[in-house]
């Protein structure tokens, strides 16, 4: 069964894991051709349709954002092409009030949880309506209303923060769970180690979701670690882990639900390794052809996470080409509206540069702000 999932970097094999790792094998539920493997799905039809829509929307947003970047209308984009099942299936396993600590590829999860598409594009344009007030690069958003942490570039920092948050919640007898996303590369960071170790010792209600997409920019997983999997690293922290086919929506939902339930039941944290693949370059700044020959992608294209849900839905609810075209059109017109609006919106006010460094402006920032306002304006950003 495992041979159907090509190992991400082409070399790691799915070897046996210690017994205390939750699952012996990779969790799988839906084959690439859209047929069920064993039980499942653990989802109602409407839920599957909603999730499929969300995946299609995520991909459409991704494609548009790349285009906007190529056109020079936004500065940068980092997307989730090929990783949609991992991102959306895992977030779907959370409930309202649970927390989500994003890495940087999880805008799809944020949108599904209620982050307005308009705010997302405001962030890509860094305009005055951006929640982050145009202070961060595109794709570095946050949204407290829906318990969405703040995207930050330094790799891994959010993992430890998610542990502290979940720990705090437990101390306050709040039953929420905190899920942290990170990549395979991030498992090498100080933060992964600290986060999992603290979570293990204090049995915090966390889900650690490692998107193993095969690459950390140009570095393949076998240069990232010599361990036989990323999931197995959980052993070092006395916590259980599970691997799932990250391109299999139903498998991701199942694995994450298992972990979320454990956390909510006070049984502590779980590490999930979702085996997926980064189909695009690392970001719009990256040209993957420099280090990854095109043919490498082929087996992964055949495992497309959207395609298999679509095939499943065709069979299950008679999902048609017209249905598909319908949601496509809907998303495109929605996109047009929010992009127009985002592009029209002014940049953040000059004085906003000094706000929020502290709760109140101290004297030195008042002086610096006044100095800036008194002086001439800068040339337009390139």
């Amino acid at each position, binding site marked *: 069964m495992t041979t159907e999932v090509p190992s991400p970097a082409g070399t790691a094999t799915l070897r046996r894991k210690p017994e205390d790792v939750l699952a012996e094998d990779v969790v799988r539920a839906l084959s690439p051709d859209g047929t069920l493997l064993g039980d499942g799905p653990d989802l109602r039809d409407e839920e599957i349709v909603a999730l499929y829509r969300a995946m299609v929307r995520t991909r459409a947003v991704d494609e548009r954002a790349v285009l906007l970047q190529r056109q020079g209308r936004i500065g940068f984009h980092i997307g989730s092409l090929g990783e949609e099942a991992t991102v959306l299936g895992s977030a779907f396993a959370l409930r309202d009030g649970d927390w989500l600590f994003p890495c940087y590829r999880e805008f799809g999860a944020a949108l599904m949880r209620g982050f307005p598409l308009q705010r997302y594009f405001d962030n890509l344009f860094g305009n005055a309506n*951006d*929640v*982050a*007030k145009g*202070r*961060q690069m595109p794709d*570095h958003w*946050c*949204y*407290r209303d829906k318990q969405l*942490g*703040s995207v*930050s570039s*330094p790799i891994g*920092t959010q*993992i*430890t*923060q*998610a*542990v*502290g*948050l*979940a*720990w*705090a*919640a437990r*101390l*306050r007898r709040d039953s929420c769970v*905190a899920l942290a996303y990170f990549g395979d590369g991030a498992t090498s960071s*100080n*933060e992964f*180690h*600290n*986060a999992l*170790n*603290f979570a293990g*010792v*204090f049995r915090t209600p966390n889900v650690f979701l490692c998107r193993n997409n095969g690459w950390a920019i140009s570095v393949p997983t076998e240069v990232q670690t010599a361990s036989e999997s990323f999931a197995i690293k959980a052993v070092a922290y006395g916590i259980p882990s599970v691997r799932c086919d990250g391109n299999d929506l139903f498998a991701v939902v199942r694995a994450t639900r298992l972990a979320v339930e454990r956390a909510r039941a006070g049984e502590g944290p779980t590490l999930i390794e979702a085996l997926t693949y980064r189909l695009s370059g690392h970001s719009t700044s990256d040209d993957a052809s420099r280090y990854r020959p095109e043919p490498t992608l082929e087996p992964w294209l055949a495992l497309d996470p959207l395609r298999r849900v679509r095939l499943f839905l065709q069979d299950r609810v008679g999902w048609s080409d017209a249905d598909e075209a319908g949601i496509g059109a809907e998303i495109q017109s929605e996109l047009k509206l929010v992009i127009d609006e985002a592009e029209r919106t002014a940049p953040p006010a000059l004085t906003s540069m000094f*706000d*929020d*460094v*502290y*709760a109140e402006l*101290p*004297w*030195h920032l008042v002086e610096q702000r006044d100095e800036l306002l008194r002086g001439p304006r800068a040339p337009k950003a390139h």
Partner: protein
Amino acid sequence: MAQMNMVQAINDALRFEMKRDDRVIVLGEDVGRVGGVFRVTAGLHDEFGEDRVIDTPLSEGGIIGAAIGMALYGLRPVPEIQFADFIFPAYDQIVSELAKYRYRSGGEYPCPMVIRTPVGGGIRGGHYHSQSPEVQFIHAAGLKVVCPATPADAKGLLLSSIRDDDPVLFFEPKRIYRAAKGEVPEGDYTVPIGKAKIVRAGEQVTVVAYGAMLYEALDAASKAALQGIDCEVIDLRTLWPLDIDTVIASVKKTGRVVVVHEAPRSCGLAGEIVTLINEKAFLHLEAPPKRVTGFDTPFPYTLENEYLPLSHRIVPAIVETARY
């Protein structure tokens, strides 16, 4: 009022605030059962239990990273770093995350917390139990930095810091943990962040100091007085944002200034103060401002008293400045 040393005053402040506000959580290495290697958290574990006074694994990055998560949730963590010298494994979480969280989230996520840590030399700690890294935090925009020199200020500033909505680095000068004693108001007592204190009024030379070196500055001022030089001594108390008005008013009066700190000289806080004085009181300066500081070497062991900017080094600087 009760007579306390610094350790007792800080312990008293922690106990008071933990009773008043159940969001306050103390965590760190050895802060629990044993009450901290300097005994600053003594008794808190017994009183508040292991959910609020938490012994952690040996990882400063883990402590601060987790504390950030707690603060994001709405608690008021007061992590302890056992020695300021050991704060650097947490440096990324502090300067990249803690200092920027409110800003980068457009104000959605304040991140209030107080990082307590013993600072400075004077206990024969050599390289790694003596350093004063305040500038490494001031320069990373977004943090407040406090360093009390008396038990009363330690209590008052710690309570203000815990109640502050911004992250505060709270440096405790370990050289005077037990040596500095004084009356400390009981119960609720705060000292505002951002206000210096003139601890000795004078007309001829302004001496700016903080932490353990305040006492050296005062001693030097007394010795200078014997030579007929009348010093005004300012205890900064808050290192950032500093109380520029008090410093400038004093320098406008005296025209002469000596700044003292333990940290290495180059790119230290003294340089910032001198530059601010240039910017705000240039025409009042009657002598070049002087720095009496640690040297630009790692902190030594045997020669620690030669390294520190003790009174014997401050006196000649005052005299030179006065006689310029």
